[in-house]
């Protein structure tokens, strides 16, 4: 296990060290100590390595992640795993606003709650939140799965495209063009797989599925010339 202590190592040096890893040697397990709310911790990684961050972080933790498995033992600020490409990011605590925004791949697991705009504009990422999510989550979500074991806030899935939303608890309100949809066997299979990978013992049958009604002007071919 390689250790980097942010009390003594500059943040940029820590990120450069992690970004230089290829996964080809035996230094595949890293531990980051004393993040003390720092921004951009473990960003832009591109190697099959495991990184454990011990404590709370600030903005944009694990941003743009590719391949790496990043585990934060505390809570994270806004924009965790923003634009993640692949790999996994697991947060033991809570996540602030726009967790997993614009993510293209990989799995983001939040064991606590996520606040507003979780999964905004997601483009292929899978997000599993063990707790609740805030308002305007999955706004303009395009591809991927958002699984919420608790409750969802106002305007869930507003202006949704093709992303699938699964919520076990209550939904305060659905956003424009977001509707409840039938849960078919293939959805239960997707859910079972995601819940297992996210370490949740929730049952797929307890969830409801939401998706796009595809009625907004963006879905009308007559409007195509407008964009």
């Amino acid at each position, binding site marked *: 296990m390689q250790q980097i202590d942010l009390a003594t190592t500059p943040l940029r040096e820590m990120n450069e060290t992690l970004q230089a890893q290829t996964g080809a040697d035996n230094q595949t397990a890293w531990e980051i100590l004393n993040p003390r709310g720092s921004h951009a911790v473990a960003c832009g990684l591109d190697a099959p390595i495991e990184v454990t961050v011990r404590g*709370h972080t*600030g903005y944009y933790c694990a941003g743009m992640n590719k391949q790496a498995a990043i585990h934060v033992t505390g809570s994270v600020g806004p924009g965790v795993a923003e634009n993640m490409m692949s790999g996994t990011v697991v947060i033991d*605590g809570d996540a602030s606003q726009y967790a997993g925004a614009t993510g293209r791949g990989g799995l983001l697991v939040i064991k606590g709650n996520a*606040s*507003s705009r979780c999964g905004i504009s997601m483009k292929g990422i899978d997000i599993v939140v063990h707790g609740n999510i*805030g308002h305007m989550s999955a706004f303009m979500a395009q591809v991927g799965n958002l699984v919420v074991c608790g409750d969802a806030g106002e305007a869930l899935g507003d202006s949704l495209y093709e992303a699938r939303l699964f919520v076990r608890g209550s939904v305060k309100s659905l956003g424009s063009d977001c509707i409840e949809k039938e849960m078919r066997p293939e959805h239960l299979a997707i859910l079972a797989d995601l819940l297992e990978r996210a370490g949740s013992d929730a049952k797929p049958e307890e969830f409801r599925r939401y998706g796009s009604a595809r009625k907004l002007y963006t879905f009308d071919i007559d409007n195509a010339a407008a964009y």
Partner: protein
Amino acid sequence: MCGIVGLFLKDKSLEPQLGALLTDMLITMTDRGPDSAGIAIYGAEQDGLAKLTIQSDAPDDDFATLAADLSTALGVSVDLHRKDSHAVVILPAGQAAAARAVIAGRPGQIRVMSDGNAIEIYKEVGLPQDVAARFALSKMAGTHGIGHTRMATESAVTTQGAHPFSTGPDQCLVHNGSLSNHNNLRRKLRRDGVRIESENDTEVGAAYLTWKMQNGATLGEALEASLTDLDGFFTFVVGTKEGFGVVRDPIACKPAVLAETDQYVAFGSEYRAMVGLPGIEAARVWEPEPATVYFWSH
């Protein structure tokens, strides 16, 4: 972007360290607001006495004979403790309005930052660490305090545009965000006789809360009403003699983190601001909900 910090002490043994703890929090928030900084600190209240915090760009001239002049004009004894460009004027309770009138009638540029029994406000243009050093903020004691680092958007970078704003006795407000209906609301409040001194949006927010409370609302009710009547983005932290409160607009895009232990409740725009607090590792840390009023009092 701006930075807000707040600290409400439950444990009296920390009171001598309030200024030092808040100063560290404030300086950590420099990169959210390097234009100006300010702090409202509550403490050192004395029965039967009121405090006015005043500021001048020419304190040597403006403060020289002020205590004696006020004493003569009001017929009471007046003390003045100068701190750099600011001074705390101590006079018998009930004399604050008369003192304001005397100060307003003098030549020079004295501004009244706050009045009340417990509140003192210090704010200036400059980096937070320089502002803190000018007033020796880290030496101050108290029960609770609020600090702000400003990155100006709605009005000029001036002492008057810095936060906190106080529009009522022992009341203050700091703000991260921007209000869009402040011009209209300022006109309305001024017509109702509310004192608003700057063109700043946040001062209108503070004056709105004061006006609500003058009309019988509790602070909690005033904050609830602000969610309907104020248009724009805001995370507010408000101070009163008894405690402090937090409210965020329903969109809640301006960040906020709260932390609570047996010893204190702390507010920070970011968790980073709190990492120097004693026992923070074991604190309950959470993000306040949108459109929800939080308040702690002694």
